[in-house]
């Protein structure tokens, strides 16, 4: 059985590209007015709850300050991001990925659940039992909270969409609150991104499976895993 459905793999890479563009253009846009406020209005740095650092060129798209071009990329990448999020939610609900891998039980949220997760993880990436409680909670937060929050706060900032759904701006606490939440959620996603990349690099085969789909361990005895025992002889001899 294929481990990652085609819909999951397709969305994963399209979304990865979209998120990289959205994040780095977002940092360029942030440089235009580096202050965040709560409420409906905000323009005076004295009222800001956060004075944001100026993001350097290497962290932004484009690599110099260009609000127009950054916005062009941002609102373009918003399409695959927004439509993709709707697509993956429908696909996850339809193909059972959500029920199988993302739903949690109260036990998953206990310290014992976290301990079990750590134990399962230290066994390497080849474990059969799907996602452990920590993974379920983390991915669930990303799909259920961070990504939708990113989309809805993004829509709420747009004055044209404000006329579509004034209530959306209101439930987010006003346009400047929506803008602050957009910034916070972006860094939440960045934090996930870092953890995600580090853990994937530890077992790089997982990255390949994201392209190929990989295989779940079959019920019949699987082929012995290719292990690379490190012979003691490889220890570098001491010099002098």
């Amino acid at each position, binding site marked *: 059985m294929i481990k990652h459905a085609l819909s999951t793999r397709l969305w994963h*890479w399209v979304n*990865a*590209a979209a998120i*990289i*563009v959205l994040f780095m253009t977002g940092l360029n*846009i*942030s440089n*235009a*007015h580096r*202050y965040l*406020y709560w409420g*409906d*209005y*905000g*323009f*005076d740095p004295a009222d800001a709850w956060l004075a944001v650092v100026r993001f350097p060129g*290497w962290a932004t*798209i*484009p*690599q110099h300050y260009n*609000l*127009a*071009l950054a*916005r*062009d*990329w941002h*609102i*373009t990448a*918003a*399409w695959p991001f927004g439509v993709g999020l709707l697509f993956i939610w429908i696909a996850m609900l339809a193909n059972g990925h959500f029920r199988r891998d993302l739903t949690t039980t109260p036990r998953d949220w206990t310290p014992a659940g976290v301990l079990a997760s750590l134990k399962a993880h230290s066994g390497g990436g080849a474990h059969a039992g799907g996602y452990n409680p920590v993974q379920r909670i983390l991915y669930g937060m990303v799909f259920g909270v961070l990504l939708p929050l990113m989309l809805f706060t993004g829509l709420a*900032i*747009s*004055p*044209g*969409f*404000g*006329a*579509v*759904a*004034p209530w959306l*701006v*209101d439930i987010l606490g006003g*346009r*400047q609150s929506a*803008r602050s939440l957009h910034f916070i959620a972006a860094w939440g996603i960045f934090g996930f991104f870092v953890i995600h990349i580090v853990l994937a690099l530890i077992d790089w085969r997982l990255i390949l499976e994201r*392209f*190929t*789909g990989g295989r779940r361990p079959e019920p019949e005895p699987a082929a012995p895993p290719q292990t690379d025992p490190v012979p003691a002889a490889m220890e570098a001899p001491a010099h002098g």
Partner: protein
Amino acid sequence: MVDLPRRSLLAGIAALGASACAKINESETTKSLFEAAEDGHRAVHRALAGKQGLAKEFRPDQRSPTFRGNGSVTVADPFYKQQLAGGFPDWRLEVKGLVEKPLALSLAEVKALPQRTQITRHDCVEGWSAIGEWQGPQLAALLDAAKVQKGANFIVFRCADVLYGRDYYESIDMVDAYHPQTIIAHSLNGEPLPEKNGAPLRMRIERQLGYKQAKYVKAIEAVASFADIGQGKGGFWEDVAGYQWYGGI
């Protein structure tokens, strides 16, 4: 089989690299992609909100304590300076272009038209917002009085301010021109417009960003196309910096 998408995906990710970006930004394909994305947002906004869908209006106590001035906050033109000092006695607002009956209205005549008062939020493209109460006649009333001709597709606003050596101007389509909240404001928070906010007359186009809200308006011009105005992109910032013509995003 599996190798093919892998390679093209990796190539796609690598294309996001810095040096490639400069070339990508200038390609015609990218420009048309940006335009399609912008048009898509506008189409969704218009379809979901309706042509007459209103921007939120606020209570007087929800206004920001002051209203920031941005972009041009002063006008160098001597005639403007002299008019500003005297309360704009000889200022005329022209309505011209593709109209049956061109108009030239004094400030008193603008104030004598049926008025709309609205407390709305002003969103700058930079990210900040301010809330103020605006008063003035609806643009639709002026366009009806001047009898706009059938061939008109856009309304252009000609302004008295000059930035980087160019006359400020802006343009909107007929949907926003006839939107009920599109007014020519002469007052902010119950007072005549201060110079920094566009005295004596400025546009309010409430479903779009700040750079669309032309200040120091001298003339309103109905046109079939804005291709031969300025650099042809429909507005000062659109020409100078490449901002989106649709400022609703």
